[in-house]
């Protein structure tokens, strides 16, 4: 015997009234895509719940994939059995032995009998199955208040389901239910985490990265692609827009006093990101700013930089400490990549002194010297878009080497 199903419980979906169906549909699609590696599995929606039919796929491997899918509150491996008393007894016994292999501890049986045609009633079944377990194990005892394991038995019209274990899901909302955003992905520790948290709230994600060759090299770009690839685990494929930023950066460096260079550069980035967002139908920008973390992220800086766009800017990390961000980065697997020591475009021209209290008036005045529209539109036109997929980790030319 082995678990042949996984029952999925939704996170906040219940709250969403008549949108519920659409959300469920999205979650189902996301699950199907996430489980592509297990072609034998099937994702089924029925009677307001979702099941994964394993059809022989490894339950552990599938479960570890499920942990990354937003919109799942919790999930349980389940045994689906025909409605036959002997099979049910046998299944319950197997499940508890699987959950408590040393056969030591406490349990309780909770039967839900939705199918009223089943001959035994719930209470009778609780007693019957419980006795069967007690008779056939060594040191298990019943504790109905605080059991180590709850054996859940659901008698439904089509079959009986038995579950013993519950695992926590990623929570949040199914990716793709909240509209599209454009993530400003730098290669540092913060922005991938911001992207992850945005995905958690159900957005569809595209990313934009500013690349300044030869000042930033191919490895910095590769690193950003790798980071985006990590995010595909949570959000499916991601469009990554690479902006050629050298010309604009050089012009800013030439025309703007040192202490405003960072501020103006950020304003340019926002303008370009806004244009890219509009072009691609994104309704907001997302970045990894955290209030007061560096000079460009003081309230004064945010105020001055934000001025150039009317698009909402989501800042999931705005109230977080660096250590909290690092912890999430470690958990989602971006930290090790983020700390690779390649120059990114924020650091190459970094002046010794950056204004922590820039003003809109002065920033606008300094920009007078630059043909802003020209540099912005050139950068936008030069954008190169690559599609990052979860399974593109083996480059084609290497394929035959392995």
């Amino acid at each position, binding site marked *: 015997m082995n678990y042949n199903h996984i029952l999925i419980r939704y996170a906040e979906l219940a709250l969403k009234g008549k949108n519920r169906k659409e959300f469920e549909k999205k979650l189902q699609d996301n699950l199907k895509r996430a489980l592509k590696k297990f072609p034998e599995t099937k994702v089924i929606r029925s009677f307001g719940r979702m099941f994964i039919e394993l059809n022989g796929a490894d339950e552990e491997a599938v479960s570890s994939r499920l942990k990354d899918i937003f919109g799942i509150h919790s999930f349980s491996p389940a045994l689906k059995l025909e409605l036959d008393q002997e099979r049910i007894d046998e299944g319950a016994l197997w499940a508890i032995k699987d959950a408590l292999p040393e056969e030591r501890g406490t349990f309780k049986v909770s039967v839900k009998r939705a199918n009223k045609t089943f001959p035994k009633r719930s209470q009778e079944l609780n007693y019957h199955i419980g006795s069967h377990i007690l008779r056939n194990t060594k040191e298990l005892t019943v504790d109905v208040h605080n059991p180590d394991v709850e054996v859940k038995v659901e008698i439904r019209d089509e079959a009986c389901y038995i579950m013993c274990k519950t695992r926590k899901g990623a929570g949040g909302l199914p990716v793709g239910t909240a509209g599209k955003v454009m993530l400003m992905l730098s290669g540092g520790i913060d922005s991938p985490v911001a992207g992850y948290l945005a995905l958690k709230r159900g957005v569809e994600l595209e990313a934009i990265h500013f690349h300044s060759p030869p000042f930033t090299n191919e*490895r910095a770009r590769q690193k950003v692609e790798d980071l985006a690839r990590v995010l595909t685990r949570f959000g499916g494929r991601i469009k990554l827009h690479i902006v050629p930023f050298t010309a604009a950066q050089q012009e800013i460096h030439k025309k703007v006093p040192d202490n405003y260079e960072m501020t103006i550069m950020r304003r340019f980035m926002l303008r370009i990101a806004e244009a890219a967002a509009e072009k691609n139908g994104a309704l907001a920008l997302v970045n990894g700013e955290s209030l007061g973390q560096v000079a460009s992220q003081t309230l004064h800086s945010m105020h001055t930089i934000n001025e150039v766009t009317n698009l909402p800017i989501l800042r999931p990390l705005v109230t977080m400490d660096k250590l909290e961000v690092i912890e999430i980065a470690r958990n989602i697997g971006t930290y090790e990549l983020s700390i690779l020591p390649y120059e990114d475009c924020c650091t190459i021209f970094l002046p010794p002194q950056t204004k922590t209290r820039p003003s809109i008036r002065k920033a606008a005045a300094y920009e007078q010297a630059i043909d802003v529209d020209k540099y912005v539109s050139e950068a936008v036109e030069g954008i190169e878009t690559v599609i990052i997929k979860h399974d593109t980790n083996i480059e084609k030319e*290497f394929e035959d*080497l392995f």
Partner: protein
Amino acid sequence: MIYFDNSATTRPYPEVTDTYLKVSTEYFGNPSSLHPLGKISERLLVQARERAAELLKVNPSEILFTSGGTESNNLAIKGTAHQYQGRGNHLITSSTEHASSLEAFQQLEKEGFRVSYLDPDNNGIITAEQVKEELTDETILVSLIHVHNETGSIQPVQEIGEVLSHHPKVLFHVDHVQGAAKVPLDFRTAKVDLCTLSAHKFHGMKGSGILYVRNGVRLHSLLSGGSQERGIRAGTENVAGVTAMIKALRMSMGKSETFLPQIRKINRWIEQECSNIPGVVINSPEERAPHILNISVPGIKPEVMVQALAEKDIYVSTKSACSSRETEPSRTLIAMGYDKETASSALRISLTYENTFEEAERFIAEFSDIVASLKKVVNKQ
């Protein structure tokens, strides 16, 4: 040629040497170089690591590339001892480990560590119970071979891992050199912290190996001088060897499903035939790896047997290749309770995926002839 010495080394698959050649000539850049040639080598290395992790069902960050089994064993044992000596100075291993483990432990003894060498039972097995009894508050490492290189005995790694999981201070290293792609071992479920693999035992190139280092385990490095392999193992990476190793591992794991039942059958058949030859005894236990069989012809020096068979183009070995030049009796067989004469005349037959019954038949025919004629000479009949 009949090559029955696959536990000493295997012949690399042609596909593996192709990969090795291609990577050596086309992707020769140093992965640490900043230019595109370096970058592409680095990408290849990153992907090799991801592939290895996938095959071994672990995380890429848990794969450390080394120069082979000997280095992996040394790094696991000395690296743990030196890293965690603050926690205790007691180490546990068995008396029948491969030389690369055993001698690492002997070195550590000279440095002041206390080492317990567990003796196996008649089947070459160390039980979880034995390990449990030997544990003290000072113990920091248990290191055992999974599939024994001379006899094919399989240690109950899973059970020992289970015992050790209740002692989080004690790390568990498994020498999986002979077991890789032949006797399955799931590092996670067996609760292994460190695990050694060697490429040339599964049709890869010599000079490449893996040490699995579970996330969270830290090792004191043996080689310093660079930040390669997360600073644990300095030295320019052997990208060609590594890539070829992953290919070999994938191919071997693919073949193992189809061919293991067959080589198990061949192994059994040779055992049965040998036991019918007068003067030949079987040393391997009944329960053993599918590819190894250890036998003895008491009274005849094993070197003579190896040479006589080689004249017929059949290749087997005495004990493990790493200690075959010593004339001592096999300490493994002695520890398993065999007498000195049997232990001094052991031969190892070790198979791989594509060995056939025809080869086994020819081996038995030649072998029984040689035994008969040598016996005549030795006994002056």
